[in-house]
């Protein structure tokens, strides 16, 4: 894997805090854009060479609470960047940044991603 992300690749995100599962869920069943505000970069796991089921299962094993996914194109179509930032214990770790120069996603970007997010569990 490298810093190339196909448009359809899925990016999995665990929505914290796990002890208050409904914290970011609206009455209409959608996730709030507030869940996408992170000044340190929005951490996600890229699907990589895995199948959807494998990637989702890996997320469910490691995180409590709700898991959702976005597609890379959901980010790029609003000017957000997906960076491949693997860590020693997670070769799939990536982050979504607002732009080349801004880590934090703008309000417009957060709202768009909240609208496009698909709930896995």
């Amino acid at each position, binding site marked *: 894997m490298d810093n190339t992300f196909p448009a359809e690749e899925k990016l999995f995100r665990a929505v*914290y805090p796990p002890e208050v599962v409904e*914290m970011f869920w609206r*009455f209409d*069943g959608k996730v709030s854009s507030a869940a996408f505000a992170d000044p340190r970069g929005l951490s996600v796991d890229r699907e990589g060479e895995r199948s959807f089921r494998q990637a989702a299962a890996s997320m469910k094993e490691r995180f409590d609470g709700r898991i959702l996914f976005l597609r890379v194109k959901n980010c790029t179509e609003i000017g957000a960047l997906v960076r491949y930032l693997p860590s020693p214990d997670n070769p799939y770790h990536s982050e979504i940044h607002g732009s080349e120069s801004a880590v934090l996603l703008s*309000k417009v970007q957060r709202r768009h991603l909240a609208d496009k997010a698909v709930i896995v569990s």
Partner: protein
Amino acid sequence: MIIAKQMDVRSNIKKYFDMAYNGEAVVVPRKENKNIVIISETMYNEMMSRKRVTEYAERIASGVMEKAAPKRERPSDVRSFNLGKLEKIAALANGWNGNGAPAIPKELVERVRRLLHALTIQPEIFPTALCSIQFEYDNTRRDHMEIEIGAGEEAEVFIVRYDGTEYFESVSADPDAINELVGDFYG
């Protein structure tokens, strides 16, 4: 399908609009292949409908089915619900988002509590990792409004209209100003 030069379309726009309205796609070639296609609203709606069906079929084929959204009944007493949720927000410890988010300051929690008591129309409330609390409102026109309450005297307002138009403004983070803003949003 009809191909028409840009200049020709400009001078005979009604003619080409009528063609599009009657079901013809009018292609207007432009430099660097930045071509435009004029179609009727009916044709556009049909295309979007087909696109949605195709995307749905792809999701089924890939085994990626969107789970039923965990919709919840809107509580009969949203203010009490919000005040209860605010207690949970106040209890979030440093690092609550798994990525170093600071706990929500007590002063902000108190400020939001006062606002919730004073607001005529209750929002949905959410914490952010930016030391702020976000109010969300949705009206029957499908407009969406976010009001971000932080440490400052001003609250940031972000509105997305049903047609995708976006607005930003700031408003004094006091009950009167927010009640007026929300009243306008629902008016």
